[in-house]
Structures are given as structure tokens and as C-alpha cells.
């Protein structure tokens, strides 16, 4: 019986692991994914672009569990077939009723077809809402603007290859087919209108339609064509090229003809032809752009997208934690080792993800709020693992997987702003300082957080542990102390390095900026704890309670200053965060107060 159960648990672990590792199949856009696109100043595979756009529209990086690029290909090549995709996230049902839609079902995702009848009303409302000052807008008004922008982006993308599609405006031919005959059109235009034949009049009419189209499809979003003719690196959308040809009465560029081939093979469901055509296009781009987009990095990024490493780590840390909790109940050893194994397993994609991002961007791992959480999660998981290696009392696994999981979940909330691997503004454009200051301080924050998690553990053990209580408590306290010391050293050095960076780039070492004050607060609090302990003002319990307050100082330094909305470092703000923050702090204070009173009554 027991043996069977063990096997069962192994099977569960194995399936968990393997299900997380098997990548999504059913994709036949492998070549298409590699198309290079310039978005927000960075060259990336269209695979990433698709994810970013889909996240922007629907809040998720996938559509019905299928990779975003499948949806994007559908939208670009066959827009009419994507009208039923549920991609528009509407957070507030009032938005739908205010634009006169009868689809009032609360927060959810809607398709283009569902919203299409109300777009003119939406536009009207969005324009009037945009006249209101940002801070004075109601939630519904802001949401209306957001939804309108989503529709706008969607329209732009749907129009990207319109010049290849047959249209009644061109007698069921495409814009492009007439652009190829632009010389003839030019000749006709030069003639006297009275002398034109019937057929020529028709073409003149079509040229007017072309004028209209050319004016309409401006400022498209899909920058996939490199243009180095001016000596400067520029990327443009297919329409930019088409419009230029039309304006100067030139036949379409080779790029555009290649796109046309790509479009027609896709629309004819010709998979083999499509792959060949896309490859031809990609080779042409690489050749034209003289490899300014590094093909190795593009491939790496596609791989990174496919693996989705942080999601996998989250998954492993979660089960590591779960199994550890199981191990307290039954099958101690087995669950313990599975949990140990899962923590290490979680670190693999986590480490891979950090390294891949570094290579893709050619940057140190931390450049924005999203990445600080991902990196801090990694640090805490590593510290937890190290603790476990030294102490083998399973507190290392507990703190490592718990903080790794929680920090990764928090990072997910900031993924929309930070996961896109954006470019850095001038003042942050320094790999040296990013690598030293930001990393050290994040390591420091990680240390203080781990110490606080251990502090919780100390208090819980003091309250509920039976048996060899004294030894266990002493052991846990030593871990609280050591990790706090680790955190203090790195936070201090990180803060000073930040000061030096500030001195290097704008001439002041310290300016009482909120972010600086946040870091200072962590250092001061940590120093208070150590000196209080040294002067016997607090005991082990006091130190452990203090370490929990330490987490609060870290949380305040991380989010609090952003909530204040002032200062040079302010890079991420959300009002939902404010309430979550206050609730968290209140819960911690309640826990601290409650446990303290309980333990004092029991004379501990």
C-alpha cells in the first residue's frame, strides 16, 4: 500500500514536471515568427510583437491557449476571419452600456464583431473624454479612452496588408495590382479628360480611389521594412513603402512584392509556399539591413517566448511549497525530497530566463520594476536553497519557494509595462551602473525579505512548535540574523553605489529623493535592529518581529515611493497597489501584535 502511494506521488511529480516542460505544438508559423519588427525602439521577432499587442488588447499573452502569433497572422492576412476573436478586454461593464452595446455581461473579453456597431459612439465619447484632464477623468471615461485606443490599434494592424487584398474599389483587384501599372496611370493622368476612352476613364477613377486609400493608410504600426537609404537606421511599415511608390509614380518595391506573395500563399492555405515566401522575405530583410538585427538574438527571443520561463518557475515553486507542506503531514522524506527537487527545477527556467533576457537586450538583468521582482525572486530562491544546503531543516526550501513564488506573482502584475524589454532612457543607459547599483540593491532587498519570512517562521515556531523547541528556535533565529546581515550589507552598498551613480550623472550624491529615502529607511531599520540587539534592548523575539517590519520597509521602498508619485525614480504606479499595500501592512501588524501578546502571556 505504502509503496504504491510512493509510486503515485512520483508519477504526480513527473507529470507536473513534464507537463510544464512540453512546449506548445500545433504551430506552423515557425518561419513567420522570425520576421523582424521595430517596436518602441527595439528590433524583435514578430512573435514578441504579437504577444505585446495581444497583452495590450486582452491583458493576456495568449488567445485561447494558442500563441499570440497565430492570432496576429490571422489578423494581418485574413482580417475578416479574426472578427470573432475575443481580444478586447473591457474592465468595466458601464463602458459597454454607455456606448449603447447590448452585450452587458460584466468584465470580460469581447470580439471586434460584438463591438463593431458601436464604434462611432465609442469614438465620440473617447474624444470628449480625452478633453478632460487626466486626473479628473472618471474610471469609465478612462476605460473608454483605453478601449478606443485598443480598437484603433486593431484597425491599424488589420489594415497592414490591405494593399494586397482584392477590393470592390479596384474592381476586385488589389491596390497593388494597379500600383504595378502606375506608369500607365501616370500617362492617363497626363491626358486631357475629354480625350479619354471608357477604359481609361475607369482607370482614372481607380487612381482617385488609390489616392483616398493612400491618405487613409498612414502611420501604420507594423515597421518590418529596413530602410538604410538615408544613412540612418529607419524601419517602415509596408504601407509607408507603398505610399512612397504611389506618390512618386514608381512601381512597388521588392519588399512589397514579397509580402504580396506571402499574403496570397497564406490566404490559399498553401503552407509550404507560405514558408518559402516568408523565408525569402526574411533573407531579403537580413540582406538589406546588413544584419543590424542579429538573427541569433531573434532566434533566442523566439525560444524565450516559447519556453515562457518565469511562468514555469512559478509553477515549480508553487508545487515545491505544496509538497513541503504535505511533508509535514505524511511521507515526510518523499515529499521533502520532491519539494527540494522542485525548488531546484524552478531555478533552472528562472536562471535561463534571466540570462536569455540579458543576452537579448545586451543589458544587466534589472532595468525596471518588473525585472526587480523577477530578480529578487531569483535571489530569494537561491538564498533559500543555500540555506537548505547548510542547515537541512527544510526552512530554506520553505522560505525560498514561498518568496520566489510570491515575488514572481507580483512581477506578473507589472509584466505589461516591464516584460516587453523596452529601451532605456538616456539617464539609465549605463550598463555599468545598472549592473552594480541595481543588482546589489535588489540582492539586499532579497536578503531582507528572506530574513523577514524567516522571522515569521520563528514566531510561528515559538507559538506552535512542540518537542525540541529551544534548539529549533535558536537555529531559526540564527538564520534570521544572518540573512538580515546579508541584506544590510548589500542594501547599504547598493544605496551608496546609487549615490555614486547619481554623483556621476547629475552631481549630487544624496538628494533625499523618495527612492533614496526608501533605501535609507531599510538601512536605518536594519541598523536599529542590530544595535538594539547588541545593547540588549531587544531579544531574539524582538529581532524576529523587527525582521517582519523589515519586509514592510522593503515593500514601502519598492512601491511606497511610487505611490507618492514624486521623484526621479518614479517608474511604476497603480492605485490598486495602494489598497493591496495597506491591507498587507495591516495584516502584518495584526500578526505581529497578536503573536507578541500571545507569546508574552505564555511567558516566552
Amino acid at each position: 500500500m505504502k509503496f504504491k502511494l510512493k509510486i503515485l506521488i512520483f508519477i504526480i511529480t513527473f507529470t507536473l514536471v513534464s507537463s510544464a516542460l512540453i512546449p506548445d505544438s500545433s504551430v506552423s508559423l515557425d518561419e513567420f515568427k522570425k520576421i523582424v519588427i521595430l517596436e518602441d525602439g527595439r528590433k524583435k521577432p514578430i512573435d514578441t510583437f504579437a504577444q505585446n499587442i495581444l497583452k495590450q488588447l486582452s491583458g493576456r499573452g495568449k488567445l485561447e491557449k494558442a500563441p499570440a502569433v497565430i492570432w496576429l497572422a490571422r489578423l494581418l492576412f485574413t482580417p475578416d476571419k479574426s472578427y470573432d476573436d475575443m481580444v478586447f478586454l473591457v474592465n468595466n461593464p458601464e463602458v459597454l452600456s454607455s456606448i449603447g452595446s447590448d452585450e452587458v455581461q460584466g468584465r470580460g473579453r469581447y470580439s471586434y464583431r460584438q463591438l463593431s456597431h458601436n464604434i462611432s459612439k465609442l469614438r465620440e465619447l473617447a474624444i470628449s473624454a480625452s478633453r478632460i484632464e487626466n486626473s479628473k477623468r472618471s474610471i469609465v471615461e478612462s476605460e473608454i479612452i483605453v478601449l478606443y485606443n485598443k480598437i484603433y490599434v486593431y484597425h491599424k494592424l488589420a489594415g497592414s496588408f490591405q494593399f494586397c487584398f482584392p477590393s470592390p474599389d479596384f474592381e476586385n483587384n488589389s491596390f497593388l495590382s494597379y500600383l504595378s501599372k502606375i506608369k500607365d496611370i501616370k500617362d492617363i493622368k497626363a491626358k486631357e479628360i475629354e480625350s479619354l476612352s471608357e477604359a481609361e476613364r475607369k482607370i482614372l477613377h481607380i487612381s482617385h480611389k488609390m489616392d483616398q486609400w493612400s491618405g487613409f493608410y498612414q502611420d501604420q504600426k507594423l515597421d518590418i521594412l529596413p530602410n538604410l537609404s538615408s544613412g540612418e537606421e529607419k524601419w517602415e511599415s509596408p504601407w509607408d513603402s507603398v505610399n512612397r511608390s504611389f506618390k512618386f509614380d514608381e512601381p512597388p518595391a521588392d519588399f512589397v512584392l514579397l509580402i504580396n506573395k506571402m499574403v496570397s500563399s497564406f490566404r490559399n492555405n498553401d503552407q509550404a509556399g507560405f514558408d518559402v515566401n516568408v523565408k525569402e522575405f526574411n533573407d531579403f530583410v537580413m540582406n538589406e539591413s546588413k544584419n543590424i538585427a542579429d538573427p541569433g538574438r531573434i532566434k533566442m527571443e523566439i525560444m524565450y517566448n516559447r519556453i515562457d520561463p518565469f511562468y514555469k518557475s512559478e509553477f515549480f515553486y508553487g508545487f515545491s511549497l505544496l509538497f513541503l507542506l504535505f511533508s509535514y503531514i505524511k511521507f515526510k522524506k518523499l515529499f521533502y525530497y520532491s519539494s527540494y527537487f522542485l525548488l531546484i527545477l524552478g531555478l533552472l527556467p528562472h536562471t535561463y530566463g534571466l540570462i536569455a533576457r540579458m543576452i537579448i537586450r545586451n543589458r544587466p538583468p534589472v532595468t525596471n520594476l518588473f525585472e526587480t521582482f523577477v530578480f529578487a525572486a531569483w535571489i530569494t530562491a537561491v538564498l533559500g536553497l543555500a540555506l537548505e544546503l547548510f542547515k537541512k531543516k527544510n526552512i530554506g526550501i520553505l522560505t525560498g519557494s514561498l518568496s520566489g513564488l510570491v515575488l514572481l506573482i507580483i512581477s506578473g502584475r507589472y509584466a505589461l509595462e516591464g516584460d516587453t524589454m523596452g529601451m532605456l532612457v538616456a539617464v539609465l543607459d549605463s550598463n555599468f551602473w545598472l549592473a552594480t547599483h541595481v543588482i546589489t540593491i535588489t540582492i539586499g532587498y532579497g536578503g531582507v525579505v528572506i530574513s523577514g519570512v524567516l522571522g515569521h517562521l520563528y514566531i510561528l515556531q515559538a507559538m506552535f512548535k512542540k518537542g525540541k523547541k529551544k534548539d529549533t528556535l535558536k537555529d531559526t533565529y540564527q538564520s534570521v540574523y544572518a540573512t538580515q546581515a546579508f541584506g544590510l550589507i548589500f542594501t547599504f552598498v547598493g544605496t551608496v553605489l546609487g549615490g555614486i551613480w547619481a554623483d556621476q550623472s547629475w552631481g549630487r550624491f544624496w538628494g533625499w529623493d523618495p527612492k533614496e529615502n526608501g533605501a535609507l529607511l531599510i538601512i536605518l531599520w536594519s541598523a536599529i535592529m542590530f544595535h538594539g540587539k547588541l545593547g540588549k534592548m531587544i531579544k531574539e523575539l524582538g529581532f524576529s518581529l523587527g525582521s517582519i517590519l523589515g519586509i514592510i520597509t522593503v515593500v514601502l521602498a519598492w512601491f511606497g515611493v511610487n505611490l507618492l508619485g514624486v521623484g526621479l525614480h518614479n517608474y511604476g504606479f497603480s492605485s490598486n497597489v495602494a489598497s493591496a499595500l495597506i491591507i498587507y501592512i495591516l495584516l502584518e501588524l495584526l500578526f505581529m501584535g497578536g503573536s507578541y501578546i500571545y507569546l508574552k502571556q505564555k511567558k516566552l
Partner: protein
Amino acid sequence: MLNDLKKQNIIKFSYSLKLTVACLILLAILTTWGTIYQADNGLYAAKAKFFTSWFFLAGGFIPLPGAGLVLSVLFINLISVMIFRIGLRLKNIGNILTHLGILILLIGGFFTFFFSEESVLMLKEGEKSSWSNSYHAWELSVWKDTQGVRHFSSISLSDLEKGEKINFPDFPITIIVKKDFHNSSAFRNGERSSNTDILNASGIVSIDEKKTEPEPEANIPGLVLFSEDLKKDILLYGGENISTSAEIKGDIYNFSLRKLRKKLPIELGLLDFRIKKYPGSEIVKSYESTVDIRHDDIQREVIISMNKPLRYKDYTFFQSSYQITPAGVEYSVFAVVKNSGRLLPYISSIVVFIGMLIHFIIMLFRRKKENSSAQKGN
């Protein structure tokens, strides 16, 4: 003798850990409070009230120590601790270094607070200057040209007082300060009725006092001077672009209110300003200036860019921002900082880091020893 001293109560207090903890707690409170205060009142006001002050009044009547005082007490506490508490023994080396480093950091802070000077230099492409401007201090500047040579005289606005008679050592004129506004608004002819006994080149006829803004850069001063010689008022407003001239005793004198100027040890000329953006976006990748500097008959070209300042003696020139006019004229803005204690934080950080590292490693080993001996005892 050291041991005798050590027993005195005041000395005991000066190196007590309780004092350290009290100072640190106060500092933590001030930091938090000052940060929240910043959100509504701006950095400058928060700094003045909490971080650079000795005392401040909470709620208008409760006197509390400011960070200036707390840091000074902490400084004394630190020195005392180093003399009396931490013994000069090898096992304390980590501890000694850590506290020595903090001491250096505090000294650096005091140095910066008392002796550093910040100013700004804005140059148009092709322009040269060896003067930088204060960020928010103003001066009254008076000059006259005699045979092509310009004679200057300027007085800091903070030195002027209402009703004061200004004597210019080189100029035989008498000027009385009638009104002196820290922040003001000016009115032109038409907005207010004009008075013939007023001199102003920009057509300003009246200046009113305005409430002082918490951010000092937002204040634009106004000055009403009375010329005894002409029996006329001279109106000067900080927002004017041109100076007001007056003929007194046969000479033409020019008056203007401008940002306080500071002489630099070198002359800077802006040769070229460049800005780079990431392709296809408005995100600025970098901006930099090629400048031509002259000092002691030496001339050289340097590039100043973000994160790569120019250093000359105690002075550092930073690429801080830029302006491009609609006509395409490029201006480069440099922050100029004079700080002789600049290197102290660098030294401090290294010392503290090494100190902390040694200290905690020693602690770790000692604890391990304790643990193993305790286990043996069992």
C-alpha cells in the same frame, strides 16, 4: 585617564547604544515623514524642514529635532563609541572599519552641505561663457559702458533690504530700495494705469507681490528702486529679457534683475550638441555636447554626455538637459557642481563594505564555534 573619563556620566551617555538607537529611530521617522511631506510640498521645502534643519516645529508648535541635529549627535556618538566602546583589537577590525566608514560618510555629508555649490550653465551652439548661474538666487546688476569698456556692479538680492540706500563704489549714483518682492507678478501698460515717473524698458508699469512658491525656481522676484537723482522709480522684474537704462549725471546706466552669476575657473564654449533617439521612437538614447574649454592658456575639446561629466579641480560639469527652439536652435544645459568633499562617499563605501563583510564573517565563525562547542558539551 581614558578609563576615568569613561566613567563620567556624560561620556557614558555619549557612547551609549541607547543614544545610537534613539538617533537612528529619529532619523527613520524624519526620513519617512519628510518623504510623505515631499509629495505635497516639494523637495525643497521637505529638505529645509526635515533634512537640513536643526529643529522644526511639528504642527506649528511642537519643537522636534531636524536631521541636521540628529546626524550631528550621531556623529558625536560615533566618535565616542570609537574611542570608548570598541576596543582597538584585531577581532574588532570589522566593527571599527564599518563605523569609521560611516563617520567618513557623515563628514562627506557635512562637507557637501556647507561647502558645495550648485549652479547651471546654458549655452547656445557657438556660444562661450565662463560664468554659471545660480538655480534660484537672484542679483541686481548695474553696468555702464565707458569708451567700449563695460563696468559692472552687482548685488545679491538676498543682501538688499527694503528702504536701504545702495551705494555703488564705482558709480556716483544714489538708489533706494522701495519694494523688494521674493515672488511677484508684473503688469504692463493697459493692464494697470501708467505713471510718468516710472522707468521700465519692457513697458511694465506696476509690480505686485505674490505668495512665495515652495519650489524656489518658481519664484520670480520684483524690485522697485527709487533714483534720488532722477526722482523716478525704476521697476525691475525677474521675467524680463531686456535691461532698463537710465541717464544719470550724463552717463547711461543699465539695470537688470538676473540669476546670481558665479565665476568659473574655466571658459566653456559649446561647439556642437547632439541628440540620439532609438530608431523609430521618441525615446532619447543619449545626448551629448562637444565643448571647447580654456584655462591657463590651455585649450582643448571635450565631450560631455549623460553619465560622463567633465571634471576640473573641484568643479564637475554634467550634461543635465537641453532645449531646442522651434527655429531649431540648440541649447545645451550643464549642471555645475563645486564640491571639495566629493571623494569621501567613495572612500566611505569601500571602507564600510569591507568592514561589514569582515565583521559578519567573524560573527559567523564565532557562532559556528559556539555551536560546535555547545554540541560537544551536550
